[in-house]
């Protein structure tokens, strides 16, 4: 089976009998992943059941419809573990009258596992919230049953701040874990999903940024990092130093439009854009800053007179609260100021990383990228 997710489908097939968990940041729309996996397998002809615990079956159907997915087919059914909570009756094939009764809930889930090729649970965390940690004992049984029955169990687990041992049990029982997270920096700058664990094949983890499209569902996209700084600070050199392929639009040796590079690093596929340094191009900075995920400011460590201009460019590009790091470039030249001296002269906060670099020799450039990625991922709900 496939999960129906861009990039991940190129990396793994899900064999029968396995348990896959979507481990979802509470501030990111995660139910779409479960729906997309269900839809993909309904379309491929597998018999699928969607377990709903926090929305009515009609809302579930409408959600599928919003993304353009047709589930009015014979091989799709719903286990309704919601209507009982609000005192409604249900016309679904599978119905749990009292979803807070863990035995009734578990027996019905087992029935769906026995009768379907794929069961998608939306969500295990709501079941834990409703029935308590006892659900985890039953989850163990569901995993065993899925393995015996050659069914695939796909589970959504919302990463609320649960006790660590609950999280560990869920992850340990899962054959594969896919994290769905947000890049937090005051607000959520971007959303990603990544393969955290697969126990049936040897595959390198990969993270992908995504957007939700209606209709369409989860769509991967390439993040943009902006490299900015004053004229002749070494922006183009930096972009070329970190990129596997890069081009510059030059005239008379300086950048008049854009540098563009591409780098595959730490599982991310990143587009790097270098901005021109001259003031007449400042309107471009605002536009690029609005679409970027983070900013690298390159300063010439030997030219403190260019620092006010560097500060202005930083303000233009980070006005949306983007995280940034500073590359203190040309550290090999005489009179180069130290990163701490630059911090003092530019009046930069203590928590802003300033990394010494010699871009034309490739020294320190990946440390700059590391610092920015660490900053972007700092607020992620990783356990």
């Amino acid at each position, binding site marked *: 089976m496939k999960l129906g997710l861009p990039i991940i489908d190129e990396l793994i097939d899900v064999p029968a009998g396995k348990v896959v968990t979507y481990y*979802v940041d*509470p*501030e*990111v*729309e*995660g*139910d779409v992943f479960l729906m997309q996996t269900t839809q993909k397998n309904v379309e491929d002809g597998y018999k699928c059941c969607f377990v709903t*615990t*926090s*929305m*009515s079956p*009609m*809302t579930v159907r*409408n959600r599928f419809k919003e993304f353009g997915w047709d589930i009015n087919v014979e091989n799709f059914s719903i286990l309704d573990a*919601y209507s009982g*909570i*609000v005192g409604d009756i249900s016309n679904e094939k599978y119905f749990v009258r009292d979803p807070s009764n863990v035995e009734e809930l578990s027996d019905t889930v087992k029935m769906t596992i026995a009768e379907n090729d794929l069961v998608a649970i939306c*969500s295990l965390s*709501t079941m834990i*919230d*409703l029935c308590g940690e006892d659900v985890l004992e039953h989850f163990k049984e569901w995993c065993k049953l899925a393995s015996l029955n050659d069914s695939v169990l796909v589970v959504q687990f*919302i990463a*609320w*701040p*649960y006790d660590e041992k609950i999280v560990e049990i869920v992850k340990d029982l899962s054959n594969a874990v896919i994290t769905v997270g*947000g890049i*937090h920096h*005051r*607000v*959520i700058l971007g959303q990603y999903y990544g393969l955290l664990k697969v126990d049936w094949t040897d595959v390198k983890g990969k993270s992908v940024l995504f957007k939700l499209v209606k209709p369409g569902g989860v769509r991967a996209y390439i993040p943009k990092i902006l490299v900015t700084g004053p004229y002749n600070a070494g922006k183009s050199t930096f972009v070329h130093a970190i990129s596997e392929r890069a081009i510059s639009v030059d005239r008379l040796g300086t950048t008049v439009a854009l540098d563009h590079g591409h780098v595959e690093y730490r599982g991310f596929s990143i587009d790097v854009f270098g901005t021109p340094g001259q003031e007449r191009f400042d309107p471009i900075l605002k536009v690029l800053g*609005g679409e970027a995920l983070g900013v690298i400011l390159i300063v010439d460590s030997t030219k403190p007179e260019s620092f006010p201009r560097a500060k202005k460019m930083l303000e233009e590009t980070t*006005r*949306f*609260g983007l995280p940034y790091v500073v590359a203190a470039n040309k550290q090999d030249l005489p009179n180069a100021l130290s990163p701490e001296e630059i911090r003092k002269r530019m009046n930069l906060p203590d928590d802003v990383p300033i990394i010494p670099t010699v871009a034309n020799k490739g020294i320190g450039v990946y440390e700059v990228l590391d610092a920015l990625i660490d900053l972007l991922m700092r*607020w992620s709900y990783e356990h």
Partner: protein
Amino acid sequence: MLEFDGNVMIYGLPLIGKTILARNIFLSKLKEGYGGVYITTNDTGEDVLDWFKDFDVNFKVIDCISKTIYPDSADTEFIKRVASPIDLTGISVWTSRFLDSYFRSGKRDVIILLDSLSTLLMYTNPQTVYRFLHVVTRRIRATKAKALYIVQKDMHEERTITTLKHMFDGVIEVKEESDKRFLRFISSTQKTDWIEFSIDGKTVVI
């Protein structure tokens, strides 16, 4: 109106005017240019917008109730509907999205009103609500937004209220004595005297 920062609970007995008080504080901030997010668990999004229609203000609504009554209800430009008051993830996702969209549009000051936390506690156990609040209050602090949470007195266990008070930056207590209404604000740095207020139509008069 009262000045406060961070996450503040409005706490008092039913039918004492907490919602009108909260709406007045919300409104005063909108008039100052704040972005607004109103999370409603009791009234439909349309009812909330209707209440504010005379005041010429714009804000966003997260409607937790319409889909439980009319599953077909669609979102609008100003109203996003989550599946039910149990759908804490939906509430959390849309709160973050609205904060993000205000932030990106250059509006840094935002006020959020959750009307009411007591309804969430009716549908879900307190531990689950604490976990939800842990995430939401942290986001509010990170964005330096302000948030109000309405909580009914005598509806929840005392230890639930104590835990909630620890999660918030302050409490606006509301009480009634001799047919007069009073409020006071308590935080770690200040405690006001009881201030008398009255309600005239939709307006709170202090």
